[in-house]
C-alpha cells in the first residue's frame, strides 16, 4: 500500500512543481503582458480599423496612433493625481498597516478648501497670469497644510488610542471619520457636483506633438506631481526623519528601542500623506473644474487600488500604480464608456493580486506571501 501510494505522491508533487513554475512565470510576465495588452489591442485596432476622425469631416476614418497617444497623455496626467493620493495610502499602510478610509475624503476636503481659498484671495477668471502664478502656489501650500493638519488630527483622535486594539478597530474609526468628512463636504458645497471657475483654462493646448494635444491641465497635474514625488523620495531615502519612517515601518518595537520617537514619526507620516492629498485636491479641482462631496470616495477607491497594484508600502509602486490606473481609466472612458471603467479597473486589480499578491514592485511582506 505504502509502496504504491508513494510514486503517485511524487508524481503529483512533480505536477505541482510544474504548476508552481507556470504560476511563477505568469506572476512575473503575465502581468506585464496583460498591462501591455490594452495599448497593443487598441493601437492595432486604430491602425487597422481606424477611428472616426471628425477633424477631417464626418464619415472619414483615421488610421494612426494619435487617439491612443491622447489617451496616454490624459491617462498620465489623471494618473498623476491618483498617484499623489495613492502615496498617502501606501505611506500609512506601510507604517501602521491600516487602510486609511478617510484619506479619500481628506482629498475631497482639499479640493473644497482650495476652491474656497482661491475665491477668498480673489482669484477668478479675470485674474492675470501673474496673479495666478503667485496665487495658485499659495493656495496649494495652504491646502497642503490644512489637509496635512486634518490628517494628523484624525490620527491623533481616531487611530492612536487604538494602537494596541484589535486590528479592525481603527478601520471602523477610519470609516467614521470618512462619514464625518463627507457630511462636512455635503453641508459645505451641497449634494450635487459644483462647477468651479476654470482658472487656468484647462482645455487650452500647450504643445502638440504629432497630433497629440497636451492641455494645460495635463501640464499642471504632471508639473505638480513630479516635484512633490521627487521631494518625497529624497525625504524618505536621505533624511534622518525619513530613515525613522522606514525603520518604524519595518518594526515599530525595534524602532522604539533604537530611540526613535514612533508617535512623532507616525504623525509625520500622516502629515505628509495629508499634504499630498491636499495638493491632489487642488490640482483635481483645476483639472476637472467640478467638485463633489463624494469625489473623495471614488478617488479613494481608485487610489487605493493603485497603491495595492504597485505594491502597498512601496512609494514607487504607488506612483506606477497610479499612472497605470489613470491610463486604463482614460482609455476605457474614451473607448468603452465610463460606466464600464470600474469593471476594468477592479477586474485588473483582482488579476494582479491573484498573479502577484505583493503587487508590481512590492516585496513579499508579512501579509502577502
Amino acid at each position: 500500500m505504502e509502496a504504491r501510494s508513494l510514486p503517485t505522491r511524487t508524481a503529483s508533487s512533480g505536477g505541482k512543481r510544474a504548476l508552481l513554475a507556470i504560476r511563477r512565470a505568469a506572476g512575473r510576465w503575465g502581468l506585464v503582458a496583460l498591462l501591455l495588452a490594452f495599448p497593443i489591442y487598441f493601437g492595432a485596432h486604430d491602425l487597422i480599423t481606424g477611428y472616426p476622425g471628425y477633424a477631417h469631416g464626418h464619415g472619414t476614418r483615421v488610421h494612426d496612433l494619435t487617439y491612443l497617444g491622447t489617451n496616454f497623455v490624459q491617462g498620465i496626467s489623471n494618473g498623476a493625481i491618483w498617484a499623489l493620493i495613492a502615496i498617502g495610502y501606501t505611506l500609512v499602510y506601510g507604517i501602521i498597516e491600516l487602510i486609511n478610509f478617510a484619506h479619500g475624503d481628506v482629498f475631497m476636503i482639499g479640493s473644497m478648501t482650495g476652491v474656497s481659498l482661491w475665491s477668498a484671495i480673489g482669484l477668478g477668471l479675470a485674474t492675470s497670469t501673474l496673479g495666478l502664478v503667485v496665487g495658485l502656489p499659495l493656495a496649494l501650500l495652504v491646502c497642503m497644510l490644512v489637509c496635512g493638519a486634518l490628517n494628523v488630527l484624525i490620527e491623533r483622535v481616531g487611530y492612536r488610542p487604538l494602537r494596541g486594539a484589535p486590528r479592525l478597530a481603527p478601520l471602523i474609526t477610519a470609516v467614521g471619520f470618512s462619514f464625518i468628512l463627507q457630511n462636512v463636504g455635503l453641508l459645505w458645497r451641497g449634494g450635487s457636483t459644483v462647477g468651479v471657475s476654470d482658472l487656468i483654462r484647462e482645455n487650452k493646448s500647450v504643445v502638440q506633438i504629432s497630433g497629440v494635444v497636451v492641455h494645460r491641465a495635463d501640464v499642471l497635474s504632471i508639473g505638480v506631481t513630479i516635484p512633490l514625488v521627487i521631494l518625497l523620495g529624497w525625504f524618505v531615502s536621505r533624511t534622518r526623519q525619513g530613515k525613522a519612517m522606514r525603520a518604524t515601518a519595518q518594526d515599530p518595537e525595534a524602532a522604539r528601542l533604537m530611540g526613535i520617537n514612533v508617535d512623532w514619526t507616525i504623525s509625520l507620516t500622516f502629515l505628509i500623506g495629508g499634504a499630498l492629498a491636499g495638493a491632489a485636491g487642488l490640482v483635481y479641482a483645476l483639472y476637472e473644474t467640478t467638485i463633489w462631496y463624494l469625489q473623495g470616495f471614488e478617488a479613494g477607491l481608485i487610489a487605493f487600488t493603485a497603491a495595492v497594484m504597485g505594491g502597498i508600502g512601496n512609494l514607487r509602486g504607488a506612483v506606477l500604480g497610479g499612472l497605470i490606473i489613470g491610463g486604463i481609466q482614460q482609455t476605457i472612458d474614451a473607448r468603452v464608456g465610463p460606466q464600464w471603467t470600474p469593471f476594468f479597473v477592479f477586474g485588473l486589480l483582482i488579476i494582479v493580486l491573484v498573479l502577484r499578491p505583493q503587487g508590481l514592485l512590492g516585496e513579499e511582506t508579512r501579509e502577502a506571501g
Partner: protein
Amino acid sequence: MNELRAQLQEWRAAIERRLPSWWPRALAVALIAFGLILPQLFSVTSNFVNTEILSLTYVMFALGLNIVVGFAGLLDLGYVAFFALGSYAFGWLGSGWFYKAHVHILVHAPASTIPGIHLNFVLILICAGIFTALAGAVIGVPTLRLRGDYIAIVTLAFGEIIRVFALQGPSLKIFGMPLTGGELGISGTDAPYLPGVGMFSQLNIRPWYYTIFALVLITLFVNLRVRDSRLGRAWIALREDEVAAVSMGIPLVRTKLFAYSLGAAFGGIAGAFLAAYTTLIDAGEFQFGFSIFVLSMVILGGLGSIWGVVLGALLLANINYYLIPDVFNSLPGDLGLNFNLTDLQVSIFGFLLVIVMVLRPQGLVPERRRKLELTRGLGETELEEPGTSWAGVEPGEVVQ
C-alpha cells in the same frame, strides 16, 4: 476610574455567581417571547415595526458577515455583492422580469397567471441561498492565497464589479431579455404567499415581521451550532494562525470556502427577503456603503461574538433608520436651531462609530475567546487564577 471599573467587575461577577445555571436559556425564551409580542403592541402598518423588519434583516446580514469576518477572520469588504445577488435571485425568480419564460411553481394567483418565472417564496429563498453560496465560493477562490487586508481589497473589487453589472444590466441581454433593471430597478415582484397566512401585503406588515423573525432565529441556531462544530473550530484555528492550523491537518481551501459560502448564503437569503419586502430591486442600493454599514455592526458588536453582532446590528439599524430620522429629527428645531438632524445623519453615525471604537475597541459584547487573547496574549506574564473572570479587562491597559 480604575477603582470604579474594578468595583463594577466585582458586582458583575457576584451577580453572575448567584444566577441559576439555566438563566441563559430563560433569557433566550424571554427575548423570543418579547420579539413575538412586540408587533402586536403596534398598529399593522406601524413605522416602528417597519424599522424592526429592516433591523432584523440587518441582523441576518451581520450574522452572515460575522461568519466570514468574525469566525474565519477573512475581512470581507464586498458583502454587498451577496445582498445584490440575493435580491436579483428574487427579482429573476419571483417576478415577470424574464417575460418570455413561463415557469410557475407552487404559486398562487395572480402570480400564477402572468408570464415570467414565478416560484414559491420559500423556494426562492432557498434558491437565493444556494445561488449566493456558489457565488461566495467563486469570490473566495482568488483570495485563498492572500491574507489580511489583501482579501479585503479583492472582495471589495468583486463588490464593485457586481455593482457595475447591476447598473449596466439593461444593456446586457440574456435570451434577448435584459439582465437587470439598472437604476430603474426590477419592480412588480410577487407578493409572498404562505398557506395559513395568505398573501403578504404592505397593508399588514406583521407577517413580514414574523417571517424575518423566524429567519433570524434559524440563522442564530445555525450560527451557534456551526461555531461549536468541527468546522467552526477549524475557522477559529485558521483565523488565529494559518500555518499552525494547516500543519495540524485543517484543509485550508475547503474550510475557507465554506466560510465564504455560508456567510454569503445568509446574506443572499436576507437580500432576497429585503427585495420581497421593498418590492423593488434597484441597482443604486448596492453600494460600498452597505458593506461598511454591515461591517460596522459586526465590529461594533464584537468580532466573532454572535450576541454582540445581534446587538450591534439592532443598535445601528435602529439609530440609522428610526432614531435619527424619526424620533430626534425635530430636536434641533425644538431647541430653536435652524436645521434638521437628518442633515447631520451621516456625521452623527460617523461620530458614534469613532467614539464607541475609541472607548471600547473590542466591541460591545466581545467574544470570550478573543477577550482571553487580548488580555493574555500581549505581554501579560502573570495569569489570573482560573475562575476569576477576564471580563472587563481593557486591552488598552495592558498594551502600551
